[in-house]
């Protein structure tokens, strides 16, 4: 299992290095093992440089930059080991419009192999969906599901 871990790590790291600049429109990122001599115990470090910046410490990244870095890593893993579905609960909340656009474009591409179920308040993300469900509480406290079209969905979002 040690070899498998190392091999999977290398594959994910390679993908991460291509996904990150796509979502950030530039910059670079990579994964590092904290102790490559102990594959069963080593930690995994993330180094991320948004375009034009020199970030020495991941904690200095902004809220949106952290979220986008995390999404880059998750998508990199999905590209290596596609799972039947991916469930994202408002991951686009901290992102600005330009990043939401790139996030949506990437989701649409990956949705060829993986099913995405995305909870969102953002109209741009709704627009990439093939099917939309609204959750309503006509009777307070009781949830109902109703299939909606994009026009109705956008209305619900600004209600």
């Amino acid at each position, binding site marked *: 299992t040690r070899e*498998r*871990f190392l091999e*999977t790590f290398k594959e*994910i790291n390679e993908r991460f290095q291509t996904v990150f600049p796509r979502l950030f429109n530039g910059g670079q990122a990579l994964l590092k093992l*904290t102790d490559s001599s102990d594959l069963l115990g080593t*930690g*995994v470090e*993330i180094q991320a440089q948004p375009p034009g910046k020199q970030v020495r410490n*991941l*904690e200095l*990244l902004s*809220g949106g930059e*952290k*979220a986008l*870095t*995390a999404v880059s*890593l*998750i998508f990199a*893993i999905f590209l*290596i*080991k*596609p*799972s*039947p*579905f*991916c*469930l*994202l*609960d*408002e*991951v686009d909340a901290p992102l600005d419009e330009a990043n939401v656009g790139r996030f949506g474009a990437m989701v*649409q591409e990956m949705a060829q192999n993986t*099913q*995405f*179920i*995305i*909870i*969102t*308040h953002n109209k741009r993300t*709704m627009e*990439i*969906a*093939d*099917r*939309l*469900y*609204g*959750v309503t*509480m006509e*009777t*307070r*406290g*009781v*949830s*109902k*599901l109703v*299939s*909606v079209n994009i026009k109705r969905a956008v209305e*619900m979002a600004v*209600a």
Partner: protein
Amino acid sequence: MRIKKIEVNGFKSFADREVIHVDDHVTAILGPNGCGKSNVVDAMRWCLGEQRAKHLRGQGMADVIFAGCSTRGPGNAAEVTLTFQNNGQVPTAYLNFAEIAVTRRLFRDGTSEYLINKVPCRLRDIQELMAGTGAGTRGYSIIEQGQVGRIVSSKAEERRYIIDEAA
């Protein structure tokens, strides 16, 4: 294994039976604050075998059963069914089914049931069925609300599980 539909009945705020027909590609769920969107995520994690009430934002497992509201009394049971399209990567016992429906039920008295295609089974059977697909309850395939930044903020040692899951 492609998900075809999610059925919830008596689970959290879904007092009555409700169904989501999941699209092959992207399905979006939307609605105002507190309407029940994240409860759908909890329903899926629960159905796939989540044992820790805290991970479902509850104190005890009974918190997943409809607790009532100002116009209705509490429910007696919670039930969630996930229906998958069979892609052949399943244990031999299920090879002949076109669809595989995984169901979990919990009654007020604490009795809990797992079923595959309406036949009672154990939790282990469900876990074996879903193994290797990355769809387990912990995997990188479910990102809960507010947790997206956690992978970046957590310690390097904690992050290894993400690679382990995929290995």
